[in-house]
């Protein structure tokens, strides 16, 4: 391997860790990024002659740190303010390079700090931890690059001015703060999973970023819900090739060609789920992953263990009593028992304002009406569902179901 390609590989694997440590040492996001780039540039120049150091990451951190300190000194000299760093201070203390993993965690928890707006957490995480460029982040989140750039600048400014500390939360705050992080990761995954305005359903790269991020988190912080979320995303993602047909049309779980499911990912997802079940069997992400696993393990749609899925949704509802979960529970009951039983449960949800404007509620009702033989009821419900969705493939799917009723 040439030195240049070795440095390239190091950039892929180490640049985040190096930057995370430089942020701690230099106390500034932008300066850390600049210094990190300079350190790599120095490596490209010096390593061909000096050889690759035994601990490349430590070398990069030390070099970046020195460059960063130089920048700070030059800025201060320019401002004629010498009180913070004495001119004759010759010694830059050796930076602590032993806790690189802690620094990555610090970076993650800082980017996902709850005092930042959620859009800012998303943009900052994608930029600083997933290493997307601002343009890539903007494109992924369907924003104008200037909007995204402003959000990131404002977030960094708030971190600085409100003094959000660069630290891993204390033990007693960790569970709640971890929830914030997992929420951001799952949001990234879902942004990639469906684009509500556009015509395609799956933006593959954001889902990949979320999975990569959760995998990193699982290494750094072995927590049941981290494993649960990772399992959930892997299992969802395993169906990505089966979810659309060649024309980008939506295919529901029931109709998907299961031969197209990524078995490698399913195996990986199930392995992470097993670890999650040891630690947090009844926690929300773990429960959702268990539901996804029940689907993944069914060789055909008719092999699906709906009784188990209904039980899991019920347990999930205990933890998160949302109308959407009640909806999914009702559908599982319908599949386990009869469409009429499911419709009864759905009727109980009719009072919730949020559910009335949720197109999947009406689509579910339509489907159950169809299965029970009430085609008129199905028609009305599909029409209602159509008025509530804007996404191309989902609209076309509902139209197809509506048309199919007429030929039933």
């Amino acid at each position, binding site marked *: 391997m040439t030195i240049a390609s070795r440095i390239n590989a190091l950039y892929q694997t180490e640049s985040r860790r190096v930057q995370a440590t430089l942020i701690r040492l230099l106390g500034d996001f932008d300066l850390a990024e600049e210094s990190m780039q300079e350190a790599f540039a120095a490596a490209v120049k010096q390593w061909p002659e000096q050889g690759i150091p035994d601990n490349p990451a430590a070398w990069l951190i030390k070099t970046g740190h020195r460059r960063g300190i130089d920048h700070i000194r030059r800025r201060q000299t320019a401002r004629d303010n010498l009180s913070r760093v004495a001119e004759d201070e010759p010694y830059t203390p050796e930076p602590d390079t032993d806790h690189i993993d802690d620094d990555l965690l610090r970076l993650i928890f800082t980017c996902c700090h709850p005092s930042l707006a959620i859009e800012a957490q998303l943009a900052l995480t994608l930029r600083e931890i997933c290493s997307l460029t601002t343009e890539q982040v903007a494109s992924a989140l369907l924003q104008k690059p200037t909007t995204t750039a402003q959000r990131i600048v404002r977030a960094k400014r708030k971190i600085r001015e*409100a*003094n*959000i*500390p660069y*630290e891993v939360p204390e033990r007693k705050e960790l569970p709640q703060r971890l929830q914030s992080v997992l929420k951001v990761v799952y949001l990234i995954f879902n942004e990639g999973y469906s684009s509500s305005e556009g015509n395609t359903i799956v933006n593959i790269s954001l889902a990949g970023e979320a999975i990569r991020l959760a995998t990193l988190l699982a290494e750094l912080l072995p927590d049941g819900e981290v494993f649960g979320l990772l399992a959930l995303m892997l299992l969802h993602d395993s169906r990505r090739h089966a979810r659309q047909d060649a024309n980008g049309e939506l295919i529901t779980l029931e109709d998907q060609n299961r031969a197209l499911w990524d078995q490698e990912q399913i195996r990986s997802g199930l392995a992470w789920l097993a670890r999650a079940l040891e630690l947090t069997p009844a926690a929300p992400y773990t429960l959702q992953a268990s539901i996804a696993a029940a689907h993944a393990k069914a060789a055909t749609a008719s092999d699906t263990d709906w009784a188990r899925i209904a039980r899991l949704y019920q347990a999930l509802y205990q933890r998160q009593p949302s109308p959407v979960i009640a909806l999914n529970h009702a559908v599982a009951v319908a599949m386990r028992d009869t469409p009429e039983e499911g419709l009864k449960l759905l009727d109980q949800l009719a009072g919730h304002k949020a559910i009335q404007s949720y197109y999947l509620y009406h689509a579910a009702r339509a489907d159950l009406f169809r299965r029970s033989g009430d085609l008129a009821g199905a028609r009305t419900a599909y029409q209602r569902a159509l008025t509530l969705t804007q996404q191309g493939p989902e609209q076309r799917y509902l139209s197809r179901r509506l048309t199919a009723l007429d030929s039933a």
Partner: protein
Amino acid sequence: MKYVALVYYQESIINNMTEQEWHDLNQECIAGVEKLTSQGKFVTGQPLQPIDTATTVRVRDDEVLISDGPFAETKEQLAGFYLLDANDLNEALQLASRIPPARFGSIEVRPARELPPKD
């Protein structure tokens, strides 16, 4: 670093309390301030009289305009403030979360700003 914690709540909640509940709430706040002081976190602070005692002053075109009431009608009303000395935002947020009215109101936490040196 100095942070202000502005305490807001719906006054109707207080109005619906019994004498005992109101007494207990105040005692909790007093104990809270004592604890903050002993930790060196409390710089100053003050509870405020209810919103109907408020008057708003504006000066426009050299004219002093006085009006009855708070600067704006809000769902929750300003009930008091704390000026805290905390290491960072996380600590300030932790301290704010222990202010008793946080349980039924909202506490806005903002870093204080130092004015530039006098010309």
